[in-house]
């Protein structure tokens, strides 16, 4: 495969230990500054919290199996869905792809030895852990029942651990900012020689756009959350109408971050898909620049649409119309990407390995999620659909489903690189099928329930909604089965010997030039770019693809 120049000698040179074993010991992991180890520790942390958030989701779905109280009280239900939302958003979806997969893969894709600021990278992991402990320990204070959006005035008047949860989100913001700063500096300064901006893998463009949002939006959330804590502790008055403040101002402040944050969740997913699809289609990506610039466009336009969460919160019709128009507008760059991916697959030599199956999953789920977003962007339909299960289903399609399938695509794609082991590809295909069926079975019915008027965040409902709720709950079990199966065969693969080839999928980007798993410094010498990241013309029959089975 290698058409890059490496300065190391032939295969006879003394073998280096891979990064997993050099050096050994728990302490060496806790004090490491190696981006690959930090990425892995992020990944295990994210997976742990995914398990926590997922179990909470299963409990929520179980409660909704019957119209009346099933297994918990209304108050417990409120705390449960709040914790589910906060854990999934702040501890899973936001860090999943950038902090876990991005940390592992970005320097490798750029041909760099590490990120620009390795110590800052480790600091971000520890800050993440501190924030995570704070978020989960709110349970000891009686939980939080505000929903993950912490809307005032309820969040300034209710008891429990709201302040601690809000501070946890503030702390987690720092971890996100540090990752963003690191990635932008890395992409600017540590690209391999001869790698211009348009020779970068598209994953790097996605990470760059994500980092721009992390840097521009997260501080605003930070100060908003601090103001909320101050409101609770000191009664400063800014969000309290009785004191001359404005509760809706909180919503503006909050969504000024949290809408761009939606793109912190989806842009990295798109970044992974842009790598996986050309590799398994054995074809140059269609519309490289269109994909790259649409990422940047999404990052910038994402700042101009926040008020579409607030069409019914009391806003002038004129402002509403502008935000509605801008929201429609942002669908364009997303659609450009989807069309480009499909055009890449067109007449490609597609091999349906697990990462590609997940990528196709992503295309379907993201398209459903994106198109249903247009209903919510229209002012008149949003009045009907606002705060119903239609919204719940829509944002689970884009935030949960798209992000999750892309994360799984990336994990399956880079798993051999991370651990030097292949997994059972037949079980992977079954797992992927279960995830797809389970996810759609869970959330498609919710579109229907929502459009018929079932409001979100209620622990009981009218009897006529029960059939579809049962379907949704059964879907959640199928989804869980798929995910547990995935966890089982992935963990089982770790017990085998490290036999994965350096380039199991026949990819053309630089990470496949490194060993599987790579040595601590990634490459023996400095790789130099010889061809574009998706140039499949020069070498139509990639070596090593047989080893994948």
């Amino acid at each position, binding site marked *: 495969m290698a058409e890059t120049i490496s300065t190391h000698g032939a295969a006879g040179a003394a073998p280096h230990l891979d990064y997993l074993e050099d050096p050994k010991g728990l302490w060496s992991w806790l004090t490491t500054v190696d981006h690959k180890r930090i990425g892995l520790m992020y990944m295990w942390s994210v997976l742990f919290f995914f398990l926590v958030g997922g179990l909470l989701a299963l409990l929520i779905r179980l409660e909704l199996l019957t119209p009346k109280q099933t297994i918990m009280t209304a108050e417990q239900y409120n705390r449960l869905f709040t914790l589910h939302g906060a854990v999934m958003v702040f501890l899973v979806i936001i860090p999943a792809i950038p902090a876990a997969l991005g940390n592992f893969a970005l320097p490798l894709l750029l041909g760099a030895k590490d990120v620009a600021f390795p110590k800052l990278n480790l600091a971000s992991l520890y800050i993440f852990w501190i924030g995570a402990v704070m978020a989960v320990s709110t349970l000891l204070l009686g939980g939080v029942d505000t929903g993950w959006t912490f809307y005032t005035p309820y969040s300034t008047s209710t008891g429990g651990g709201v302040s601690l949860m809000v501070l946890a989100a503030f702390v987690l913001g720092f971890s996100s900012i540090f990752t963003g700063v690191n990635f932008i500096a*890395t992409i600017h300064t*540590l690209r391999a*020689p001869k790698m211009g901006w348009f020779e970068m893998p598209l994953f790097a463009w996605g990470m760059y756009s994500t980092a721009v949002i992390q840097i521009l939006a997260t501080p605003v959330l930070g*100060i908003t959350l601090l103001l909320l804590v101050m409101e609770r502790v000191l009664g400063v008055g*800014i969000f309290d109408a009785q004191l*001359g403040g404005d509760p809706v101002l909180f919503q503006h402040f909050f969504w000024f971050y949290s809408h761009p944050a939606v793109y912190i969740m989806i842009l990295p997913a798109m970044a992974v898909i842009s790598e996986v699809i050309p590799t398994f289609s054995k074809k140059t990506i269609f519309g490289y620049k269109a994909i790259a610039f649409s990422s940047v466009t999404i990052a910038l336009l994402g700042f101009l649409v926040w008020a579409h969460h607030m069409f019914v919160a009391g806003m002038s019709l004129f402002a509403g119309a502008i935000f509605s128009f801008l929201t429609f507008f942002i669908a364009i760059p997303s659609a450009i990407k989807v069309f480009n991916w499909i055009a890449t697959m067109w007449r490609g030599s597609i091999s349906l390995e697990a990462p590609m199956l997940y990528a196709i999953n992503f295309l379907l789920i993201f398209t459903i999620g994106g198109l249903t977003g247009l209903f919510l962007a229209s002012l008149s339909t949003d009045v009907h659909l606002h705060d119903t299960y239609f919204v719940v289903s829509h944002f689970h399609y884009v935030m949960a489903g798209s992000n999750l399938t892309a994360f799984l695509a990336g994990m399956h794609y880079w798993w051999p690189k991370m651990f030097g082991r292949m997994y059972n590809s037949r079980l992977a295909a079954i797992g992927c099928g279960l995830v797809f069926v389970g996810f759609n079975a869970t959330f498609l019915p919710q579109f229907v329930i929502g459009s018929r008027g079932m409001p979100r965040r209620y622990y009981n409902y009218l009897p006529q909604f029960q059939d579809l709720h049962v379907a949704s709950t059964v879907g959640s079990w199928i989804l869980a089965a798929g995910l547990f199966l995935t966890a089982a065969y992935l963990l089982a693969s770790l017990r085998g010997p490290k036999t994965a080839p350096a380039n199991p999928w026949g990819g053309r980007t630089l990470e496949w030039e490194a060993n599987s798993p790579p040595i601590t410094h990634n490459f023996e010498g400095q790789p130099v770019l010889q061809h574009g990241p998706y140039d499949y013309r020069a070498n139509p029959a990639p070596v090593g693809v047989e080893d994948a089975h």
Partner: protein
Amino acid sequence: MTTATHTGHAGDGNSKFLQHHFREMGQQFEAAKLGMWLFLVTEVLLFGGLFVGYGIMHARHPEAFMAAHHHLDKVMGAVNTVVLLISSFTMVLAVWAAQTSRRTLCILFLILTLLCAGVFLVVKYFEYSHKFHDGLLPGKYYTHQGDTVPGQFMFFSFYFMMTGLHGIHVLIGMIAILWILVRAIRGDFSSQYYSPVDITGLYWHLVDLIWIYVFPLMYLIS
């Protein structure tokens, strides 16, 4: 391309401070500087949220904010503004001294910068204790008697949040400068390697700049 030729900065030699993942000092310097600028962007947006909140609440309660700002001591505010401006100037000189390998001067200017920062905090301490004494406190702790215009507590909410957050930044800046000072005394910096002084300087200028906006917004509204 961001490689190879950064003759403007570090010369050709790679010093012992070159980290393993950079090819040469110029690249390392560029990364550090870019990283600090990005961090400063986040700081501007952090304070930006507070400024926007202040602006909106000021527009809604102009009389209360007007009446409340008369409780502030303009002289102390002005003194602190001048002190911070001087500290920014000495910081620039410290960076220059580091760039030109003037170790003693660098140490001297860093100490002067630290002194100015200390004076700022001392003045702030006196201002705060005066406010505490008069009950001019944020939110529900506001106990000042004899107001003719109601709602002045909100001005002091913002006063303490903005000057408090700024004060924390001054403290962090002092810690950073102290660390740079120790390294300067140790003799780490030269024309070959001075990026820590440079980026600490950038941070310090931002802390200064934020005060330049806080001062007129709080002390000089009319």
